């Protein structure tokens, strides 16, 4: 902890960063994201296994980008998101310094994205046992049961779009749900609109989702929305062998093709 705080103080003092995005303790002793603006505040920074939020989402905000030189603390989900976002060419206008704490409690300051990429590949987060179990349960159901399951879940959706707000991959300045001439997806909570929103979200994130599970954690209605994108990641790996957030030069699975792609349903 002290090592991290000292390192950040040092980075502020030698002018490498103007803003640090990390974690601090909130009143209820919960780790929450925080913004450190000068060296004197660096003492607030913590790192515990509870630091789960994906901080890379803040790098899209104009008010954060203003700082130009930004330090960001990366848990593995954040690092994976940074790799994916780099492959999507999203960081051309800021200088960022990436820090992490490895499993030996050593602070690492990455010199460039290639080092981040190497670190992510060495510690690549595979699907968790819980995710695998849930997916297997769902896959074991009949189609009708799955339809019942998901429509029940989607019926609780209130279209707050928290899943979109928390997602580092959802950075379009204007989302399809804001297109209202014509209104593509109804803003009220209703059957087809809810289904369309969740399918659209899953499709737009297919092969780009970095599997941090933030969308499922943040959902106020408790819908396991992350399962959709986790499933898409699994399928795309099976079909095309692509892994999102694995390489800074990675191709987006749906942006490319191979003549020998196989499918069994086109007549």
């Amino acid at each position, binding site marked *: 902890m002290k090592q991290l705080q000292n390192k950040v103080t040092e980075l502020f003092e030698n002018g490498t960063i103007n803003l640090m995005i990390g974690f601090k303790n909130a009143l209820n002793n919960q780790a929450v994201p925080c913004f450190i603006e000068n060296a004197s505040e660096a003492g607030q920074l913590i790192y515990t296994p509870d630091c789960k939020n994906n901080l890379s989402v803040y790098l899209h905000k104009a008010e954060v980008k203003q700082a130009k030189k930004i330090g960001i603390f990366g848990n593995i989900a954040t690092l994976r998101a940074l790799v994916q976002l780099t492959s999507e060419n999203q960081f051309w206008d800021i200088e960022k310094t990436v820090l992490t704490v490895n499993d030996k409690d050593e602070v690492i300051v990455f010199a460039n994205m290639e080092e981040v990429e190497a670190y992510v590949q060495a510690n690549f987060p595979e699907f968790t046992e819980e995710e695998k179990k849930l997916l297997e349960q769902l896959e074991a159901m009949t189609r009708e049961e799955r339809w019942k399951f998901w429509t029940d879940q989607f019926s609780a959706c209130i279209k707050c779009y928290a899943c979109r707000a928390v997602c580092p991959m959802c950075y379009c300045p204007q989302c399809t749900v804001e297109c209202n001439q014509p209104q593509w997806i109804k803003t009220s909570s209703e059957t087809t609109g809810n289904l369309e929103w969740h399918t659209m979200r899953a499709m737009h994130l297919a092969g780009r989702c970095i599997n941090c599970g933030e969308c499922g954690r943040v959902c106020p209605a408790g819908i396991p929305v992350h399962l959709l994108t986790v499933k898409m990641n699994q*399928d795309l790996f099976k079909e095309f062998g692509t892994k999102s957030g694995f390489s800074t030069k990675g191709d987006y699975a749906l942006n490319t093709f191979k003549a020998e792609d196989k499918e069994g349903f086109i007549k």
Partner: protein
Amino acid sequence: MSEFEPKIVAFVCNWCTYAGADLAGTSRTKYASNVRIVRFPCTGRIDFMLLMKAFENGADGIIVSGCHPNDCHYTSGNFHARRRWITFRSLLDFIGFDTDRITFSWVSAAEGKKWAELVNEVTDKIKAKGPFTDLGNLDYSQLKQQYDEAITK
């Protein structure tokens, strides 16, 4: 009561399947009149949201069709489309959507006969399945329950 006549929307590419359907017409091939054709510049332009919208607006079945692989007018549009369909179809299947209602096909400009057979086949399949009502039969009990709980707190 008259027999159920399904509404089938066909999303086809301008260069192959549309021309194939045209050939079926000019060669006076008879096929089911249930199909409504929507012409696109390329299968690569067929967004999955358009399919969702067709179902929302009352389609019972959908045909998506374009040039055979390696025959795309724009070289690679159908290859991109194929990846998108593989992804979309597996997502729909995971959600439990009836994927049998969407038929994907490659029909070239010379395959007027294949087009007519495809339309007949899909029409028969959808007739056997009956009208698409999945989107109209959703259960809002969970939302209602949450609402009731929230206002009684």
